């Protein structure tokens, strides 16, 4: 009876984890904010019991045949937690399970081009975009030898709703998923949901039978997918091991096994690759970018990410409810200079509230177009705007809140300094993640006037505009409480329109309103990168999404 409520509680809790991980992805320094280390610490007996060594021997035997030189060591910036894609939703667990599972569809490394993987071809769309029919390949098999069938696909897409997992929002528009034959599935949606193909269909397919038998174990000890790698074992905060699956149905990968180890400390992570203690690290601190790049024997693979960082205003209460005050704050400093100064090559200044790649994918205006609309550094205009506003006087203190990440804190301090110079008080508070989250969600002007956060959306602009701006998400994924009925209607309209051209138009307009009314001050989109030992690793490709950066499931990756 209380069980259900508990799952609700979990939902909210982990939703915050999701948020935080989204932030982490696009941020630079995370320093253990959501550090789920030991979240899934194995039952202690596994560690202390000498019998556990027997389990260890299994992978070890393989190591004997192929000496440990065959194992690729992968250093992550945050410790992963769990291995069941129905439940898991943090990017760092994804870096591991994307090798264990195959998607129904998958993106090509480095761009947003969708291709069938377990599906035989692109889906058939009927009913003006409310029905999708997907045909599956016949040959794929799971690691336990059972074939991948329509039943598994249906379970993958319905379980998040049945079990109310964190991934529910991705699939809850599905009215029904039906088996037409053993290798064909038909999805009917409750309404036209434009991002269905780009966001929902590329899900990783789980083994329905094995998962239902023991969902807990499936998530923590024994995930079974149909991907190129098999899960071996893991201890949260310490390591996670996967090894090559011999009978993979598709073109096999070439690295015999991969060990993932977290190193949350930036300098520590870079030191690991410099000391050749690991083959590759993901998450390269901007400060070390140039040095790593210049280092002989180390190369950086990079691609623009789908992450995005911003400052958002409290649009509902306090001085920043006045758009002129918001514009003044945007005018009083130069985000562009700050970004160029801090990141150099590691990130790109943006004035859009969506990743440029994502905007591009549906044909929105490009990054230059919106950069031209940015508020120029102009202290005089800023001062005039502030002096002319009734919402603020010189005694008003502007509170800026930031999570514990120096890059964002410094950005806030910069704004505060510049405001101070034109005679207005502002201060930055650096808050721990949990406090920060409840603060910005409150929308309370006693708590903040500005907050800074990041977001990783993915392949469709809806994931940015709906989540970060629509009123449905007030107090959840957004704390600016911006009101504008027409604007909110447009977001829904774009969400429920099937044609890309129409959607692009709508999103251009939405983006212009955001800039015009200064709801966000967009900051930057950073690069997803991985630094690797070029003498030992070959064929590595960075990817837009942190979950698949770099693409370890790709057959080109080789350990020399």
């Amino acid at each position: 009876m209380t069980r259900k409520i508990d799952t609700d509680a979990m939902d909210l809790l982990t939703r915050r984890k999701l948020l935080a991980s989204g932030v982490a992805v696009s941020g630079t320094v995370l320093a253990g904010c959501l550090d789920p280390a030991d979240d899934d610490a194995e039952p202690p007996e596994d560690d202390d019991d000498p019998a556990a060594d027997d389990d260890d021997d299994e992978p070890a035997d393989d190591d004997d045949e192929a000496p440990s030189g065959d194992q690729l060591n992968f250093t992550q910036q945050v410790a992963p937690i769990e291995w069941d894609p129905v439940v898991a939703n943090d990017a760092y667990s994804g870096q591991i399970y994307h090798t264990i599972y195959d998607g129904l569809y998958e993106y090509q490394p480095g761009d947003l081009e969708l291709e069938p993987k377990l599906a035989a071809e692109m889906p058939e769309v009927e009913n003006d975009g409310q029905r999708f029919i997907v045909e599956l390949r016949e040959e794929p098999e799971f690691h336990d030898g059972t074939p991948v069938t329509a039943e598994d696909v249906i379970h993958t897409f319905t379980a998040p709703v049945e079990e109310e997992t964190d991934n529910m929002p991705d699939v809850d528009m599905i009215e029904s998923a039906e088996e037409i034959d053993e290798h064909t599935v038909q999805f009917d949606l409750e309404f036209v949901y434009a991002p269905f193909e780009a966001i929902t269909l590329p899900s990783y397919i789980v083994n329905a039978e094995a998962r239902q038998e023991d969902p807990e174990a499936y998530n923590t000890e024994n995930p079974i997918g149909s991907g190129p790698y098999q899960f071996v074992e893991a201890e949260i905060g310490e390591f996670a091991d996967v090894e090559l699956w011999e009978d993979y149905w598709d073109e096999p990968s070439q690295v015999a096994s991969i060990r993932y180890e977290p190193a949350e400390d930036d300098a520590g992570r870079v030191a690991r690759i410099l000391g050749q203690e690991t083959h590759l690290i993901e998450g390269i601190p901007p400060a070390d970018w140039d040095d790593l790049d210049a280092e002989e024997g180390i190369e950086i693979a990079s691609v623009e990410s789908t992450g995005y960082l911003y400052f958002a205003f409290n649009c509902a209460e306090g001085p920043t409810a006045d758009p002129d005050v918001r514009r003044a704050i945007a005018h009083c400093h130069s985000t562009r200079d700050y970004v160029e100064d801090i990141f150099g090559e590691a990130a790109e200044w943006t004035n859009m509230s969506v990743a440029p790649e994502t905007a591009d994918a549906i044909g929105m205006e490009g990054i230059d177009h919106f950069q031209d609309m940015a508020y120029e550094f102009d202290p005089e205009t800023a001062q005039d705007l502030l002096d002319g506003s009734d919402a603020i006087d010189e005694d008003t203190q502007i509170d800026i809140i930031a999570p514990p990440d120096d890059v964002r804190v410094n950005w806030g301090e910069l704004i505060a300094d510049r405001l101070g110079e034109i005679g207005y008080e502002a201060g930055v508070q650096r808050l721990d993640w949990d406090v920060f989250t409840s603060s910005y969600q409150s929308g309370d002007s006693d708590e903040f006037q500005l907050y800074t956060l990041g977001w990783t959306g993915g392949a469709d602009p809806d994931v940015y505009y709906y989540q970060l701006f629509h009123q449905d998400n007030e107090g959840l994924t957004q704390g600016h409480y911006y009101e504008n009925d027409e604007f909110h209607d447009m977001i829904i309209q774009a969400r429920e329109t099937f044609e890309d051209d129409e959607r692009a138009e709508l999103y251009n307009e939405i983006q212009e309103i955001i800039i015009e009314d200064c709801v966000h001050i967009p900051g930057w989109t950073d690069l997803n990168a991985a630094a690797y030992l070029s003498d030992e690793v070959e064929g590595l490709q960075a990817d837009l999404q942190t979950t698949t950066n770099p693409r370890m499931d790709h057959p080109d990756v080789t350990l020399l």
Partner: protein
Amino acid sequence: MSLLRYTVYRLLQAIPVMFGIAVVTFLMVNLAPGDPVDYMISEELASEELIASIEARYGLDEPLWRQFLNYLGFSWFLGLLGVPGFADAPPGLLQGDLGLSMYYDRPVSELMLTRIPPTLMLVLSAYAFALTLAIPLGVVAANRRNKPTDHISRIIALFGVSTPSFWIGIMLIVIFGVWLGILPTGRMVYPWRDPAFYGYGNHLELWYQTLRHLFLPVVALGTLQMAVIMRVERSSMIESLQSEYVQLARAYGVSERTILRKHAFRPSQLPVITLIGLNLTTSLGGAVLIETVFAINGMGRLIVQSIQTLDYQLILGTTIVLGFVFVIGVIITDLAYAYIDPRVTYGEEA
């Protein structure tokens, strides 16, 4: 009183202190402003029902005194004895149950179990390092009192006491890890794992790698202890060398070397032993920082993480357990003291 009875007596004496640790920590965590549930969920969305269910899950819906009894595990005993109102009381500290971590949603004791061995390994190795260096240095300094050797070692010790351990750690990483590139800078190799896990051929290599990985953190953590122990060793040796029985031995023409080895050394170790016990709390505190600097998954890091996530039960559990580790450590050193010093009467109260 025999050593055994003394041991039991010391253990009994520790009970009120352990109880005190639990009380102090419990009060500090629970009387602080702010509500654990606030930090868990966003209030905008939380229904009364949801809050109530979370409170019930973590036992926060009961009055504070009752929560305390529950936490200690008294309620469980009362329930066992059939005291009305305690029928369904959950197990607590006395039963080895420290509650559920709110953030990780799993038992606190389970979370701690994998974290204690790395911390113990670190702290004990740091002491081994400190003693190996400090005792000879202390003896030499005392023996060459007010000579250059003495002054130099005193100044080194003084610097050791004055330097933050985590900064030493950072400097060691910069020098040995980054600049010279000869030692690993983070993580740990655990000797209790299978060598094949790390790709090592045999246990010898595993131990060698363990030492390599342990070296920098141990130096960083051990330097302060080394300095403190050396200072005490020196003054204690000086005191012994000035004592009447040493003067007497000298008068009888016993050689300085024999005096040093036979008459002065042994009694001088007693204050050192006491100091080790009392300084255990400093070392455990230092381990928090060293584990952070070197990315070691021990108790210290767990505490920092629990504070970052405001995981009340985990903060409570880890703090209390660290306190207990200290109390047990002090008992062990007291016993060692009693074992070494024949003059100890095993406590006058008895």
